[in-house]
Each structure stands twice: as structure tokens, then as C-alpha cells.
């Protein structure tokens, strides 16, 4: 990482409490972290460790009980198109076609029609959904819907990308294809990205740095740098170095 990279996202003493059976329950404990520009960070942890909660706090959906999140040195006050989110559950709007789904955010931004059209078509091609522009989500497979979701978010050119176990509901084959497509899209601008997952291989494959999170309450226990060069290919997962890193993180995770 170059020293000229600025801090894109800063987590400053973020703690969060939920209410459970009338008593406060600590989900996140004093998390302070800096995420640099153009970094792709994966957060991996067991279910219930609070990683999704942390992501939603960064996105602005949840206000942290303590601490704050700074995006470009400005405190995050709520959700914004500058922090694009790809959710775990199916968030593609069923009443809109593929084309109109991807166009949705562009319309909100009041981008003129001709420009919108070229952006939408470009992204439809990028996620390899040519020919499906006028299909409705109910006619699409899970993987295709996910690609629409990703395209929709990227088309808005957000400053930061947040992904919450986005490929968790897909089968292994489709998941791998989508990981590659995500990286392909990401390579173009190398936007700062935060990817939450419980799949260690996925975490390593996509990221520059991996944070391991423990639960009860959630905090980062281990941070690893992913030394592999980009662009990354499928075969990387088979290499000894990759597997070694996976073992290391697996052990850390088991300890969490």
C-alpha cells in the first residue's frame, strides 16, 4: 500500500449495544480502524459476531451507540448513494425489469435519459446479462438476480462499496463466477470496498486485507495482508500459498 493513499473510512471507537430481553447486549466493542482508499477489505467471522451490524453502521443504516464512522473525514449520518450496498437477501425490485432495476438509482440522480441508457447497457454487458434486459426478477435465477444487484450498485458509481454476505445464498459454482465478476468490475476503478462474509476462501480471494472478527462482543482479533497480485484468477485458490493463508486464518477464526 502506498503512503499516498488517504483514509477513506475511519471507524472511531465504535461500540454498539442491542436490547435483548430487557438488558443491553453488546454486539460490537470499541472498534477503531482505518480503511484506505482503493483498499478491498474482507471481514470474516462466525455468524452472530456483529460483522453485518458493523457494515450497516458504516453504511449509515444504524447509528452506533458509541463512537462514529467517518467517510472522507465526514461523519456518517445516514445511508447515501455514496455508500453503495449489496445485500445478502434478494433486494432486486420484482416489479422492475433488469434494465429498469439498474436504471433505478440513475433516475433518482436525474441523469439524462441518453446517458442513463448507455450506462445501463454498459453494466448489463459487464455482468453478462445481455439479452435479459426486459426480464422480470421472477424469471431470473438466484445468480442472475445477484448480478443485477451488483450491476445496479456499481452503475451508480458510489464512492465506497459495501457488501453483506452478498454471495451467501448462491451455490459454489455461481458464487465463484460472481466473485470473478465482482473483481472484474472492481478492477476498473478500484473503489474502496468492505466485504462481509463467513467464507474464508472468499474473504482472502477478494481482498487486500482480511480482518478476522470474533463474537461476543465483536472486535477484530487478527488482521492479515493478502499478498497475492491482481488480477486474480480461479486457479489462485489451489496454490499452496493461498491454502497456507487459509489455514492460518481458519485457525484464527476457530479461536474467535
Amino acid at each position, binding site marked *: 500500500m502506498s503512503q499516498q493513499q488517504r483514509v477513506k473510512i475511519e471507524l472511531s471507537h465504535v461500540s454498539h449495544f442491542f436490547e435483548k430481553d430487557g438488558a443491553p447486549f453488546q454486539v460490537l466493542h470499541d472498534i477503531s480502524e482505518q480503511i484506505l482508499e482503493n483498499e478491498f477489505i474482507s471481514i470474516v467471522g462466525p455468524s452472530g459476531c456483529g460483522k453485518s451490524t458493523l457494515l450497516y453502521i458504516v453504511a449509515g443504516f444504524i447509528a452506533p451507540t458509541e463512537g462514529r464512522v467517518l467517510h472522507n473525514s465526514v461523519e456518517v449520518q445516514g445511508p447515501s448513494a455514496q455508500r453503495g450496498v449489496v445485500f445478502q437477501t434478494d433486494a432486486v425490485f*420484482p416489479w422492475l425489469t433488469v434494465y429498469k432495476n439498474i436504471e433505478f438509482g440513475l433516475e*433518482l440522480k436525474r441523469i439524462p435519459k441518453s446517458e442513463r441508457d448507455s450506462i445501463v447497457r454498459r453494466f448489463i454487458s459487464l455482468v453478462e446479462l445481455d439479452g435479459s434486459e426486459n426480464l422480470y426478477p421472477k424469471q431470473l435465477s438466484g445468480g442472475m438476480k445477484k448480478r443485477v444487484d451488483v450491476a445496479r450498485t456499481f452503475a*451508480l458509481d458510489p464512492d465506497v462499496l459495501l457488501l453483506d454476505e452478498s454471495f451467501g445464498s448462491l451455490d459454489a459454482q455461481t458464487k465463484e463466477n460472481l466473485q470473478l465478476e465482482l473483481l472484474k468490475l472492481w478492477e476498473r476503478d478500484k473503489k474502496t470496498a468492505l466485504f462481509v462474509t463467513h467464507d474464508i476462501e472468499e474473504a482472502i480471494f477478494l481482498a487486500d486485507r482480511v480482518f478476522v472478527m470474533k463474537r461476543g462482543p465483536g472486535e477484530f482479533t487478527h488482521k492479515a495482508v493478502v499478498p497475492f497480485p491482481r488480477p486474480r484468477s480461479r486457479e489462485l485458490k489451489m496454490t499452496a500459498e493461498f491454502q497456507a493463508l487459509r489455514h492460518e486464518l481458519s485457525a484464527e477464526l476457530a479461536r474467535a
Partner: protein
Amino acid sequence: MRFVRFPSVVTVGSLVGFVGLWFVASTYHLIPYLPTPIDVVLVFVEHPGPLLSHTLHTLVRGLVGLAFGSALGVLVALFFGWNRYIRAFFMPTVVAAKSIPVLALIPIFILWFGIGEKSIVPFVVVGCFFIVFVISIEAIANVPTVYVWAASAMGASGTQHYTRVILPAIVPGIIGGLRVAAASAFPLTLAAEFLGAQQGLGYYIIKGVALLQVPEMIAGVVGVTALAVAADSAVRLTTGRLTSWSERVVP
């Protein structure tokens, strides 16, 4: 290859058997007062006049009540339903509307407004309002939160959340409510006419009871059934395209 469903032998046989049983039961007076199928058909053929005129009354009352009640139901639901707190405020009304035996209100309306249209139409309005209101509010409450969040992360403002996410998402639900209201409007009119009317299918049927004119009674029931089915089909057919994107199968 398209499968064409031919009714099976058993189905056809059963239908024939049903009609046959009816003939036998009526001719040999096995069921008291049961007229033969022929007698019923004769009502339609020989003197349809009164039947048609009474049907018209019921039709008009039902339609007016349905139109106003449904419109109000949708509007009130949309106006108040977007906010979680306002919805919570209306909860008792929703609960009551769901479980109240609405027929209990008929005597109140007759007392307040007199017999005939003056009480029947308001009653049907209220009945349809409850149906549509409850179903619409529930549709709004059931919009998956992830849609609203996704819109936020794409820069949607408060109004845009409502107009571009919630409204389109609830269309199938509201149409479902309209169908239920359409199918219920005419039975509700009928019930009101039983108690306080001098025209309409309800009155026609009750007169049949009093004068023991059972073929007329059956004809009246056929009439109101036809109205209910026609109304439901009308809503379904005209709104089919609006709900084609929905995964739910609406029978």
C-alpha cells in the same frame, strides 16, 4: 406440448349424478320444498322481469358501496400507512375490522338512516372499506425492509421511498384486497336487503320464503352468485397485467 384438461369420466359422471339426484329428490319430495331443476329454469325463461329488476337494484347498491368503500380504504391506507407509528395507532381499528361480525352493524345503519338505499349503501361502503383498508395496511407493513434499505443506499429521499418502492411493491396486495371486496360487496348488500329493503335480491328471496316460492328463491341465489363471481372476475381480468411481475399465485 400444451396439456388440455378434459374433465374426467368421474367428474362428468358426478355432475350427471348430481343433477339426477336433484331431479329425483324434487320429484319425490325427498327434500322438503325442493323444486325440480326445470322449475328453476322456468323462472329465468318465463318471468325474468322481477328478477332482473331486483338484480339491478342489488347491483347498483353493491357497486356504489364497493366503489366508495374500496376507494376510501385504499386512500386511507396509503395516507396513513407509510409511517410505522401511525400504523400502530390504527392497530385497534384493523383488529376490530378483521374480527367484527360486520352484519351486526346492519340494524344500526337501518336505525340511523332508514330502510332502503339510505342504509344499505353506507353499510356496504363500511364493509368494503374495512376489507380493503385492512388488506392494504398489511400489504404496506409487509414490504420487505431490504427494499427500502436498498433504495436508501441508492440515494432515495423519503418521498421517493414511498412513490418508487412502497407503492409499486404493494400493488398486487391492494388488488387482492379489491378482489375480496368485489366478491363480498353483493353478499353484504344481500344481507342488508334481508333486513331492510323493499327491492333488491335480498327482498326478492325473502319474499320467496314468505310465499313459499322456492324456484324464485333459487333464482335469486343464482343471481347474487353471478354478481359476486362477475365482480371478482372483472377485477381480476382488468388488473392482470399490473400483477404479472408478482410471484404469488392469486387463484
